[in-house]
């Protein structure tokens, strides 16, 4: 058969002596379709059935636009902050060993493992004016909880481990010889960091940024407690979807969800293209 038809057949296996391809592949695709693909298709089918006028009416209201803008702006800023802090933490963890480093390294994963609702109420209590940190911030006139700043704190908490875990292995693989060569050639430490180290870890930093951003845009549990949820001011897009669902406004909820998914997908695609351009220009010698 395959000798007769040699066109492009998706998912066509190369011959192998190991048994079980048909069974395992079939089960995987079936399960994937039932649990992930059909439900997601339902979302887009529902959005497509709305009609353009209804779709625009559902998404172009000031409240929806404000929520989408808030979600995207806070996620981007939080991902940037996570990238700077996470890159720095990864550098210290790899290059400057200290007693208890393994323990601190394990702590980094807490935001991955801690359920978002628990993180949400803990951060809120901590940063409220009656809390340990909120009280300190209040003395210098900063209100963190129940403002967009609170959203930012929650998103940095969620995003930080993504950056650390992406950048850390790259720093571990850096060889000291290149840095030493730069130093021998008369480069200052700062020049070496900027010209040798940074370009090497930059792709990992960008990847960490995109992971933190992608997680941040859709984040719900850790944000809704600390956000204050004031429409037009501190109401994030995922929360608005939940509110619309509770009002049984399924069409509006669907439209907001589709816009959110498409916008974050477009943003990630743009970063991906940018990353490829960067890599290509580095190879071609700038």
């Amino acid at each position, binding site marked *: 058969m395959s000798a007769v038809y040699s066109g492009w057949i998706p998912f066509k296996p190369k011959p192998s002596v190991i048994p079980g391809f048909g069974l395992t592949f079939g089960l995987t695709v079936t399960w994937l379709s039932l649990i992930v693909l059909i439900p997601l298709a339902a979302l887009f089918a529902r959005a497509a059935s709305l009609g353009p006028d209804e779709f625009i009416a559902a998404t172009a209201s000031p409240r929806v636009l404000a929520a989408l803008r808030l979600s995207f702006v806070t996620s981007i800023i939080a991902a940037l902050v996570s990238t700077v802090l996470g890159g720095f933490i990864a550098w210290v963890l790899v290059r400057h060993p200290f007693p208890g480093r393994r323990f601190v390294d394990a702590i980094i994963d807490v935001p991955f493992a801690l*359920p978002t609702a628990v993180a949400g109420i803990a951060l809120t209590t901590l940063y409220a004016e009656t809390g340990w940190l909120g009280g300190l911030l209040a003395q210098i006139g900063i209100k963190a909880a129940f403002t967009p700043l609170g959203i930012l704190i929650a998103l940095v*908490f969620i995003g930080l481990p993504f950056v650390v875990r992406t950048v850390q292995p790259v720093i571990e693989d850096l060889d000291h010889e290149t840095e030493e060569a730069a130093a021998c050639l008369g480069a200052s430490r700062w020049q070496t960091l900027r010209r040798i180290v940074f370009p090497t870890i930059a792709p990992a930093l960008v990847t960490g940024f995109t992971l933190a951003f992608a997680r941040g845009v859709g984040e719900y549990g850790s944000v809704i407690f600390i956000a204050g949820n004031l429409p037009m001011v501190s109401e994030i897009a995922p929360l608005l979807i939940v509110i619309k669902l509770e009002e049984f406004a399924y069409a509006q909820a669907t439209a907001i969800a589709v816009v959110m998914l498409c916008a974050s997908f477009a943003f990630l695609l743009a970063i991906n293209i940018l990353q490829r351009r960067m890599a290509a220009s580095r190879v071609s010698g700038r």
Partner: protein
Amino acid sequence: MSSANIVLSVPQRPRIVSTGAALRWTLIAVALGVIGLLIAMPLASVFAEAFRQGADAYFGALGDPMAIAAMKLTLIVAAIAVPLNLVFGVVGAWAIAKFEFRGKSFLIALIDLPFSVSPVVSGLVFVLLFGMQGWFGPFLIEHGVQIIFAVPGLVLATIFVTFPFVARELIPLMQQQGTQEEEAAVALGASGWQIFRRVTLPNIKWALLYGVLLCNARAMGEFGAVSVVSGHIRGATNTIPLHVEILYNEYNFVAAFAVASLLALLALLTLAAKAVLDWRLSVSPKPGERKT
């Protein structure tokens, strides 16, 4: 020549590039400060708030019938979702890692898809399918089956959210291990199931265990997706994270943090298990280097 060899054989060559002690410790202190403020303090505050009114209030909150109902429901949901994702994670990893086929990276991307979907949207899709105004909603109501605002919806949303965990732990490891050992087993006349049990499973057991632990932690702690499909019916569709939310919104902070501390404990246990498994992985012999 000989002098070069001598230089190379010196075990600890002093670093040409080094950071002064003062700067070094400043950097470490700043990093520890950031980690402490951002990560350790929220974690510590969960336990501090939970015990704010003493151990009696803490255990009283945990013994509350509604809290116990939430714990039972969370265990039931995880007991269904985790084994299913375990089986399909292993099956998917086998198909992807042991065979070469076109469109493989596309399939991997699809398996990872639930990670990049907002939890709220993960719940929404099931409401659109099975809710009152959903595709299958009217049909299901006619036949007396309730999925949304009931346990099946919680299970479905949880399976969706935890879908990638096991497969994603296994695929890189199994790809790196290759297919030589399985091919040798085939040549020796082993059946597919025998190959999996005797050859593949011993090679992947620690990664599999870690994937299951992560899957379980997320299944028990999932909030957004479950919140959308649950309807928050106390004693009926409230999992532990949803119960935490209700208690918190009622300003019953001690009880909220007491119940939340269970989830924080689960997270800490998961991380501790990860540390142990990392250590096991680093000391266990790599495939091909195994003792006979």
